[in-house]
């Protein structure tokens, strides 16, 4: 049963992380990010107790909420696409396919290194790390950069939960996730302020 749930979570992570690469609307991006944290929670649950795993879910959802509330206060949709290159969805799908192929090939080796954490956990985490790095490679827009970083960190957190059960680590990783969202919100506000000032001058 637990194994089935884990594989469902992997599928969920594959869909959300690929979706994050493809969608252009920030609302969909944040919805997918929130769903992604559900997948992270399900995979973390394989090694951590419910209480500790739910910290990841709550912190992730709070992070998505912080980013969503900040972004929703800006009027323009245009800035989303600045620096999100290349724009072709087909290209991004192709790149995601290559990442998936690499994950497929490397999962058994990484699983052995990570004390047989389980293929689902290793595969799920590698998908997130790979997709997150791809995301970081094709964008300079701050919201997407933060989402990319959160995706990479989520992947790492799944893998690390298999080998480390410290409450302090769980708390600090949750704090870092929230901090990353707050930094993202700060930079988004700064970007919007600068753009507003520029518009006023024009």
């Amino acid at each position: 049963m637990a194994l089935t749930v884990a594989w469902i979570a992997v599928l969920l992570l594959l869909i959300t992380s690929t979706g994050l690469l493809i969608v252009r609307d920030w609302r969909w991006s944040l919805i997918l990010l929130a769903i992604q944290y559900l997948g992270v929670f399900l995979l973390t649950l394989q090694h951590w107790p419910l209480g500790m795993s739910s910290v990841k879910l709550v912190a992730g959802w709070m992070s998505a909420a912080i980013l969503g509330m900040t972004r929703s206060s800006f009027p323009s949709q245009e800035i989303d696409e600045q620096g999100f290159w290349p724009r072709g969805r087909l290209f991004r799908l192709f790149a995601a396919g290559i990442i998936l192929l690499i994950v497929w090939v490397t999962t058994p080796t990484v699983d052995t290194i990570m004390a047989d954490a389980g293929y689902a956990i290793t595969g799920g985490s590698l998908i997130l790390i790979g997709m997150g790095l791809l995301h970081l490679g094709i964008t300079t827009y701050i919201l997407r950069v933060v989402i990319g970083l959160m995706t990479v960190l989520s992947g790492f957190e799944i893998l690390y939960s298999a080998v480390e059960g410290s409450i302090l680590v769980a708390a600090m990783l949750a704090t870092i996730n929230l901090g990353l969202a707050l930094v993202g919100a700060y930079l988004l506000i700064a970007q919007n302020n600068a753009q507003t000032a520029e518009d006023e001058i024009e």
Partner: protein
Amino acid sequence: MSAPAIWIIFPLIIGALLLFINNQRLLSILGGIIGLALAIIAQFIPIETAMSIGGFSLKIASSITVLGRSLLIQPAEGPLLTIIYGAVALWFFGAEAANAANRLVPIGFMITALMVASIAVEPFLYAALFIQMAILLAIPLLTSIYEAPSKGITRFLVYQTLAMPFILLAGWLLGGVEASPGDLSLATQSASMLGLGFAFLLAIFPLFTWIPMLAEEVSPYILAFILWILPTVTIIFCAGFIDRYAFIRTSPQLILALRLGGLAMLVTGGVFAAFQRNLARIMSYGAIAETGFSMLALSLNVKVGIPVLFLLIPARALGLAVWSLAVTVIKGHVENLRFGKTQGILRILPFAGTGMIIAALSTSTFPLLAGFPGRVALWENLARISLISALWMGIGIAGLLTSTIRSLAVISMAEEYTTWQPRESLAQRIMLGLGVISLFILGIFPQTIQYFLTNLPLMFEHLGR
């Protein structure tokens, strides 16, 4: 009362409280005094030793427990805290002159507390988590909420954040290597992970691109603070790894990697600086070269390398503080920091111009200045191991010297009959003047700092004994 409460929790709270003060002068003085007080306490009140003051008995405990793990500041780490908080005080006293106190003092306290926590946390590999928190705090320190975030900021955030997973995973893998030392593939994997983590964290070539980018975009004084505290504590953290794991200590490949990495930083920093035409970028490459010096020190024989590493720390702090303050003052009087706009600036900013050149010369191993004793010791010991490496170090230093001489030529190239009209404020003149004098004192009398450094290597169980 415990040491982590004094040097970690207290500065965190103070930092948060200082966010509510807007007066630059008050912030600068308050921050400097508190930093100095923390440094003095660290030097003169021993940890884990009962003291009787008047009728009271006082003992500072070395650890506290947080969520099942402990923050532990050993008695041997007292002098390191003195140096860290002493340098922080120096930075905060100069913050008003650099017009940066509003952000630097409160957030600087919090970052310093987190960096000290990274040295204190047990198990020590959790340090990566504290360093990551400090990096997140550095973002609002480096950028204003009214300016669009630059590419340098984004790159800084991404590169530094990617370091944490590598270091945490490497720490876990190293535990496995300890259990089965014969497993060569596991040792290689963990070493690679560790190397990648520190490459991101220390901004080792070619991952330092964010540093010159940021130098052009943000306040040089604030950037220099980050370029001092992050690499300094990270290098100590790195030394902790080497100290803790026998196979790293005894691995010639890892020592060679450290030496090559250090030389790459030093040579690229020095040579790239020589070709720059922007004063802030030259300073940033100087900071990159400084990290190279520290890595080279770590690659030496431990009996020599660790004392040299600690000897480099105060010189780096003082040199960068004076250099960045001078560049910040110049920035306030010109359109930008490119050579074309700073030509002849020495006539109107003589204190800043002199401060910048003297600090740059100190970084370039110029005799009689603070950087000289540590670097000469490093150079001499490096030459004993590898003459080729010493030659490369010379190339890096030559690059730094070239950039300094070019800068001097540009800022002194005023039009004929231009009169001297100093425009620095009194605070700027005092801070720059004191900084330059201190650079000479540390260079001419290096033994003055030995008082703090003698017992510092003892903080490492194997490297320092």
